[in-house]
Structures are given as C-alpha cells and as structure tokens.
C-alpha cells in the first residue's frame, strides 16, 4: 500500500472541512477522488501534499506514519502535486519553472544548462509538445498543464496528485493529458486524480473514492460501481430529491439570437441549458450576448427589437444580464459592502437629486438579503466575507434589482456548496416564473437535466443539437463529443 489515510480531520475556524477522510492508494493505479465542490477533496489532498496540517487522523506512506509540516517535506518523501496551470511563473521558461524552488546549482550559481538538458530529456522521453527554453506565457493551457506535470516528474515522485487537470483544457488536450496519466501509471506511479467530472472516470480511473460533506462515503474499484450510484453517493439522497420543477407554459420570445453557428430563441418563463465540452464555445456565446466580445455578424433581438450590443453597457441597457463564471474576478467588488454590490448596476434607482439615498439603498439591499437568504449579519458586510454560495446570491441580487428580462448564467453553481446550489436553482425557477428568459451554461450535466426546459448542445463553437429535458446524459455527451 503506497498511501493510507485513516479518519483525517480538519476544520477551519469552526467549519469542518473534513470529518473523516479515508483513502487507500496503491502504486500503479489511478485512484479518482471525486465529490462536489466543497466536499473536502482539495483539503484532503493539501494535507497529503504538506500544504495544510491535519487536526487528527492517521497518514501512512509506504507503511510508515508521516506528518508533513511543509510542502518540501512531502516533496522529499516522493509526493508531488500537479496544480492547475495558474501556479506557474509566466515570464520564466519551461525549464526554469520545472526547477523552480529546486534549482540545480553549480557552486553558488544556477546551472542553467544542466536544467535545460534535464528538462529536454524529460520532454523527449514523454514526447510532450514543448521546448525547454519556451516562455510559459506563450504556452496554451494544456501545455502549461504539461509543465506542471514535468515539475512532478523532475522530482521523481512516487505519488502524483492531479488537481482537476482538465478543467481548462479542450477536448483534444484532455485526451493528451489522459494519455500521460496512463503512461505514468504504467511506470508504477501511484496517481490520485481529483475531478468532479464523472465522464472522465471511464477513461482513466481504476479506483474511486467519493467524498461528501467532508466524509469518505464510498470507495471501490471503478468497475464495481455505476455512474448512477456514484452520483447518488456524491449528492446524497436528500438533495437529489428536493428539486423537481413544474412545467410552465412559455410566453413570448424574449431573446432571439441569430449568430454564426448559434441561432436560437428563449421565451419568457423558459430556462434553456447549454451543454458541451470545455472549449465548445459556451462561455464565448455568453460573452457575445453580453457584449464582451461583440458579434461581427448576425443579430440579437430582445423583446422583438433588434439591439446592437457592443459592450456590457449596451447589453444591460437592452435588458440582458450575465452572472459570470468567475464571480470574484468579474462579478463582485469584493471589498465593498454587500449593499453597494447589489445596487451597482442600477444606482439610479436609489438616487434622488443626484445623490444616493442611503436609506433607500439599505431598504433595497436588506430586502434582497432577506429574500435570497444571504447569510450575513447585515448588508454592510464586505462581499469578501461571504461564502461562495452567498457571494453568488449577491451577484444574482444585483441583476434581480436591475430587473433585466434576460439573464445568462455561466456555470452558476461553480464553487458553491450543495445547499446553496439548491437555493440558486430555486431562485432561477422563481425568475423564470416571473417571466424572465434564462440561459444556463453548465458542465454539470445532472444539473442541466434538473433545471433546464430544453438543452442546446454546442460543439466547436456551434449549436449542434437541441434536446428536450427528458433527454439523458449519454445522449448529450454523444452530441457534444462526436455529433449525431
């Protein structure tokens, strides 16, 4: 047994991130660690990699009890974590990144040539499409992921942890990464593969361990469990049952898009889902509709009126809102109070005589706080202090207050916990019931099937299929991956 984790516990200031993390990893196997966002996957792996200290429980590496205080200690013991590509230094070369923190030295000086040579050798050995002296900023996301893998290979680790390596990769790049993971497994390395994408499991996993709410709920060989059972373990019975949407008769056409590769309508009261693989053009579609990357051809009509949308400002004026994929980056002013975030897109409504009326603003913000059940003592608190789910509710409140007829949701449940997800869905349903037209992009097929009235499938930048809500995950994947 390469790695044994028994009853690992960890809490952060009273919040239990892990209550019982169990996992047993063998050499020469790919062990998938799955669970929803917030289930404790990352925390468990950070403990293994020495990035965090456990509060309790037992960790054994090759039979010996271990406790890492620093990443360097885990590293020396042969554990290496392949992070998402964001942790590289963009201005340095591939070789410099591979040896960052572990530079080869000749006397007091960095031995550049030796590092270049060793990196080139590794690249050749694994046939990576890279050069040792390329600057990282010129690389594609997949190549950056390969650089992260090189970092792990360089240290000759016996246990590699992959943290959602395909989350920013295209389909073909994903296939490449899978190939490399299998290659490493065949050389006898133990591999932990973190993912929340079930479709990847068939490709890659020998074993699965499922975490839910900080606890290991199931662990077995991949061949002994169905995808349905995995979903059941991930989500838990109580949550999968709570959401069943009544069918509403759709009203007038609110949004009519006639863009290259994407012609569709959304009616009042409808929630239209967009499915597709990474890089299929789903986020790009939202960005075009919202004027971030304006369309050069085609047309967009809102409420039967043709609108030119050249900027987010135009979009908002036309009655289109976007709940973005990355709320910290583009959705919220984190250091401003909740109330300022809620009124930001519609400040005129709380202004009178050119001045913002603090009382009116407070009333608005407090009413949304109550209605959306945003968990904060007061709307004066900074948005930064909220959990992911509550931050998402603030973003939604902003657009509810602006009261646009069309609301686009790009991955609305990313990074929020299970309970908040159900609340966000309920809100979306409420918005639809009010006669708004909703578009929802999601990589989580079960969520799309749960929420959307119909599903448009995108592939290579174009809509390739429209499926009713009674469709299946298999059907969607079929269209997304290979086409009808």
């Amino acid at each position, binding site marked *: 047994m390469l790695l044994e984790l028994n009853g690992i516990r960890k809490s952060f200031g009273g919040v239990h991130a892990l209550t019982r993390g169990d996992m047993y990893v063998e050499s020469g196997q790919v062990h998938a660690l799955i669970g929803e966002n917030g289930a404790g996957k990352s925390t468990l792996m950070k403990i293994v990699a020495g990035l965090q200290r456990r509060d309790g429980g037992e960790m054994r590496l090759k039979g010996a009890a271990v406790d890492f205080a620093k990443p360097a200690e885990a590293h020396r013991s042969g554990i290496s974590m392949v992070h998402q590509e964001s942790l590289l230094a963009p201005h340095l070369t591939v070789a410099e990144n591979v040896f960052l923190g572990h530079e080869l030295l000749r006397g007091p000086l960095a031995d550049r040539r030796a590092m270049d040579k060793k990196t080139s050798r590794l690249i050749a050995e694994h046939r990576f499409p890279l050069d040792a002296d390329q600057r990282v900023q010129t690389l594609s996301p997949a190549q950056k992921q390969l650089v992260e893998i090189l970092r792990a290979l360089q240290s000759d680790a016996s246990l590699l942890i992959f943290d959602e390596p395909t989350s920013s990769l295209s389909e073909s790049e994903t296939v490449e990464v899978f190939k490399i993971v299998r290659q490493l497994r065949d050389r006898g390395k133990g591999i932990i593969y973190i993912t929340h994408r079930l479709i990847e499991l068939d490709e890659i996993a020998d074993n699965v361990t499922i975490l839910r709410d900080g606890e290991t709920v199931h662990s077995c060989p991949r061949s002994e469990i169905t995808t349905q059972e995995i979903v059941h373990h991930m989500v838990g019975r109580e949550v999968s049952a709570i959401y069943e949407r009544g069918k509403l008769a759709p009203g007038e056409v609110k949004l009519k898009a006639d863009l290259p590769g994407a012609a569709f309508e959304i009616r009042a009261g409808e929630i239209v889902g967009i499915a597709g693989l990474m890089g299929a053009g789903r986020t790009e579609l939202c960005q075009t509709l919202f004027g971030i990357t304006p369309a050069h051809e085609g047309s967009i009509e809102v409420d039967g009126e043709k609108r030119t949308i050249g900027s987010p400002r135009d979009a908002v004026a036309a009655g289109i809102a976007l709940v973005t994929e990355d709320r910290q980056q583009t959705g919220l002013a984190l250091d*401003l109070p909740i109330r*300022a975030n809620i009124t930001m897109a519609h400040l005129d409504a709380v202004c009178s005589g050119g001045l*913002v009326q603090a009382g009116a603003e407070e009333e608005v913000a407090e009413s949304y706080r109550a209605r959306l059940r945003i968990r904060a003592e007061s709307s004066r608190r900074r948005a930064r202090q909220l959990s992911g789910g509550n931050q998402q509710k603030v973003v939604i409140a902003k657009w509810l207050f602006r009261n646009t007829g069309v609301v686009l949701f790009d991955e609305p449940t990313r990074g929020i916990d299970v309970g908040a997800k159900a609340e966000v869905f309920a809100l979306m349903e409420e918005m639809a019931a009010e006669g708004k037209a909703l578009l929802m992009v999601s990589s989580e097929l079960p969520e799309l099937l749960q929420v959307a009235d119909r599903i448009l499938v995108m592939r290579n930048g174009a809509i390739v299929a429209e499926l009713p809500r009674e469709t299946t995950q298999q059907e969607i994947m079929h269209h997304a991956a290979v086409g009808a």
Partner: protein
Amino acid sequence: MKSDEYEMKLQIGMLQRLLPFFSLIALFLILSIASPYFLTATNLSSVVRQTAVINIMALGMTLIIVSGGIDLSVGSVLAFAGVAGTMTMVGSGSVMLGIAAGVFFGFVWGFVNGFTITSLKIPPFIVTLGTLGIARGLTLVVTDGLPVVGLPKEHSFLGEGTVGPAPFVLLVLIVCAGIMHVALHSTKLGRYTYAIGSNEEAAVYAGIPVGRYKIAIYAISGMLTGLAAMIETSRLMTGQPTAGVSYELQVIAAVVIGGGSLTGGEGTVIGTLIGAFIMGLLSNGSDLLGVNPYWQQAIIGAIIIMAVALDEARKRRFAA
C-alpha cells in the same frame, strides 16, 4: 458567539481606523505643551495656509487613488496652471479671470491624463510620469524659466486674506472638502469610483461606463490642482515655473496616511484631511522646536511607512 466575535473585530477595526485621527490629536496636544508659540492664532493660521495647497490637491488625489489610479503629475500641473493663470491675470487685469484660467488649465491636464489612460490603455503611473515631465517642460518653455510678476494686489486675498478670524483658504478648503465628501459618498461618481477601484472588471460587467468616469475623476482632480495652484501664486504673489516640485509625494502621502489604499477601493476625504494636517503639524512643529529641516523629510518618510503598515495589519486581521 460568532456574531460577538465579529462585533469585537469590528470595534477593534474601527479603533484602528481612527488611529490617524488620534495621532493628529496627540500631535496637537504634544506641540501645545512643547512650544509656547504653537497654540497662537498666527501660528495656527500659518499651518492652515501652509497645508491648504497640499490639502486641496490631496482631495483630488483621494478620488484618483480610490479609483485605483495615481497621478504623479500634480506638482508640474500646479506650476503650469499657476503660470497660465497668472499670465492671464496679468494680461487681462482681472483676478477672477486669472483664477478661472488656472482652474481651467488644471482641468485640461487632468482630462489629458484621464483620456490618455483610458484611450491608450497605459497604466496611470506611466502616463502621469510622462505628463509630469511634459507639463514642467512646457511651463519652463513658456516662461523661459522666469517667474510671472506684476500680479494685481487683490489677488493676495485668496491665499493670505481672512474672513473674520479665519484664513480665507480655510473656508475654501472646507467648501471643497465638503463637496468632495458628498461627491465621494453619495453621488454616482463617487460610488462608481469605489466600484472601479475595488474591481474594475466587475464595474465594466455591471454596465458602468468606466472609461468616462475615469476621465472625469482625473479632470476633477486637475481642477482642484488648478485651484491649489492659484492659492500658491497668491501666497507668493508670483507665478513660479518651478513651483510644486515633489508635491506629488506629499499629496500621495496625505491620502495614504489617511487610509487610502494604492490598490484602490479605499480612502476617505476626512482621512485625507487628517493625513495632510498630520504632515502640516509635523513640519510646523519641527520648525518651532528647531528640528533640523533635513530630518523632517526622513521623519515624514518613516511615518508614511508606519501608517501603511498599521493599516495593512488592520485589514489582514479584519479579512481573516
């Protein structure tokens, strides 16, 4: 329980936030005791007059820094606007026209800064570093390096006049500060300034015309610098092409000591006023107590670092 902890944090945070204010009071008390000349009408008026120029410029800088920007050109713009204003005054014989011209040229430079930043998408640090040189150079070219003289006597009222017991500049400062305070807290301009400084991208995504507001922010700050320039010329009764050298440092320091964050999204008018007066008192106190003026610069430098260090510590504790 959690709520109590939060309340306590909030109160500690509040106390730390008031630290500049307490420092100002402490400084005031210490100087009152240490020097018999400090607490006199003449000396206090002179402190107000000395700090008014920096103070008024710092009001504009507050707006810019809250928006996440910076303006290094204010010292040079002060010289340009002062020279242009006094030349107009001498040429036309009208004090009001001269002052209006000074404010106008300040506005123009602010507009140029804002427009260049938004249209060419160059960081404000670089743009205003450039205009720092350009404005100073043009000022020297226009004047041939010589001061503008022969200003009408009435012009001295702006900088040196009194209304009742108070220096006239104090009234000017109070009015400007009052307007800026309301603008920053209760107008769309102010709210958008905080939003842009806190997260520019999110502001764009909320449909705010960010570019237009940024230009307005720099232009307003430019107007205030123009006004400060005319106060400076009134006190000197000449238009000096070399006026305002390194004022940008004092102005930025006032904002930062008062709690403004160079990463944007934070800063208040009251904080800035306190920051400017702390520096004014330090300099006045050093003069009264006979501290070597060379030391003054070093002391102010150390205080800037200390103020920011304390503020950062507060924010870190608060965010945790």
